[in-house]
């Protein structure tokens, strides 16, 4: 199958090793990737979706129409991009007036939108289209003996009616099953479904409270599991859970917050034998303990 890879901004700009991991792994598993030339911001919820319907949905429509013109569905890793595009598409597909207005705006640019393109998350593609059996068969190295915990991206769970793909959004399992397919032991913990806290205005408007909020999650992981790593499938979860551990160590004069964080496709790429320098080199908390075991 072929899908348009919607990269968003954080992945290509700040964590391009994740982009490399996605571009390296997906074609090996039968998912070819096409570009979304001239795409714009998803739009991020704090931008046009916070100002008016026209600018919000015209930006969603702009992005969707590029993939639609190619006749391809869109694949996204970033939780916010996924949710914004999916919610934008939902508004447009179920409201003829909004779609007509967006097409009026798009017409000025020579584009149009029929809402034929689906928006899908990379973890859903891996789980439903590729499947764990193919993943197990394809990998050359295993995470056997290592313990992982999962951070599910909220934006892929809620509201399940619009963005969801899990059988039960309140008991998601895709990332767990995908991580087990790499040979790792996946442990549960009490705050598994707690949001990372990294998106939106919370962490900038209440930095101390936001750090304390995420600390409860990391403390639960440390106290309740033998986690060697955290698995995410969202660029915000990845950067936030990685960077905040350094902050916590400095604030508390400790080194106990040292759990490496990986995007799922990075672990997949490492297990497929790709060069760690290319697919998993950018991080705050060192990843050597996991990478050296492979």
């Amino acid at each position, binding site marked *: 199958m072929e899908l348009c890879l919607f990269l968003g901004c954080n992945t290509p700009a700040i964590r391009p090793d994740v982009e490399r991991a996605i571009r390296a792994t997906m074609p090996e598993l039968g998912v070819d990737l096409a570009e979304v030339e001239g795409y714009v911001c998803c739009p991020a919820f704090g931008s046009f979706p916070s100002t008016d*319907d026209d600018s919000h949905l015209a930006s969603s429509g702009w992005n969707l129409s590029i993939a639609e013109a190619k006749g391809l569905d869109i694949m996204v890793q970033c939780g916010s991009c996924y949710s914004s595009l999916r919610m934008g598409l939902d508004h447009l597909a179920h409201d003829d007036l909004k779609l007509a207005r967006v097409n009026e705006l798009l017409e000025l640019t*020579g584009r149009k939108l029929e809402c034929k393109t689906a928006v899908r998350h990379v973890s859903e593609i891996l789980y439903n289209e590729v499947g764990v059996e193919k993943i197990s068969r394809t990998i050359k190295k295993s995470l056997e003996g290592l313990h992982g915990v999962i951070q599910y991206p909220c934006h892929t769970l*809620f509201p399940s009616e619009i963005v969801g793909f899990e059988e039960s959004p309140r008991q998601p399992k895709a990332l767990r099953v995908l991580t087990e397919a790499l040979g790792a032991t996946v442990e549960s913990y009490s705050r598994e479904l707690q949001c990372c806290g990294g998106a939106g*205005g919370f962490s900038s408007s209440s930095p101390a409270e936001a750090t304390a909020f995420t600390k409860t999650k990391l403390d639960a992981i440390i106290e309740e599991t033998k986690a060697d790593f955290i698995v995410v499938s969202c660029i915000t979860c990845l950067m936030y859970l990685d960077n905040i551990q350094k902050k916590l160590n400095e604030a508390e004069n400790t080194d106990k917050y040292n759990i490496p964080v990986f995007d799922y496709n990075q672990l997949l790429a490492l297990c497929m034998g790709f060069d760690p320098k290319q697919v998993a080199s950018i991080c705050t908390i060192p990843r050597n303990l996991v990478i050296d075991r492979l």
Partner: protein
Amino acid sequence: MDFSESDKDLWKQIYNTKDLLYCLNCSTCLSGCPASHGDPPLLVRNLARMVVFGLEDDLLDDDTPWACVSCSRCEEMCPMDVKPFEMILAIRKWQSANDETRVPPSIVEIYKRGYTQSVGTNTKLRKSLGLPELQTITKMPQMLKLYQQMLMKTPVVSENDYMFNEE
């Protein structure tokens, strides 16, 4: 609290859906909400009351809708299907339309280069990782111009056009 000057029809301006009127004030929307831990806390339930009661001035001054992390837990869990996350975005939209200082600077960045940050300019790093050059809209001036012309026809950009003019 003085309700004598409140605008009973404010909800129609902000979030014109009867969904909101079903709110029981049960607080399910606060459970698991990261920003409910903030200072000041985001109390979605209270915002719903403020909209229904028509407390225009208080609502215009309230910063907490902007602390929302957009996780949409409240949207999922609300037993009355009020769609609280949609309500948060609707309050932000109403604030932006009625107070230009609320218009987020990120939309100016998006207007100027397509993104909230510089994308595709880290060519050296990307090359070292074996990545292709990215076809960003920033590098496609004609396409960027079309996108800007389209945005110029939308309320937030046309009504605040001074923010978007090139120096």
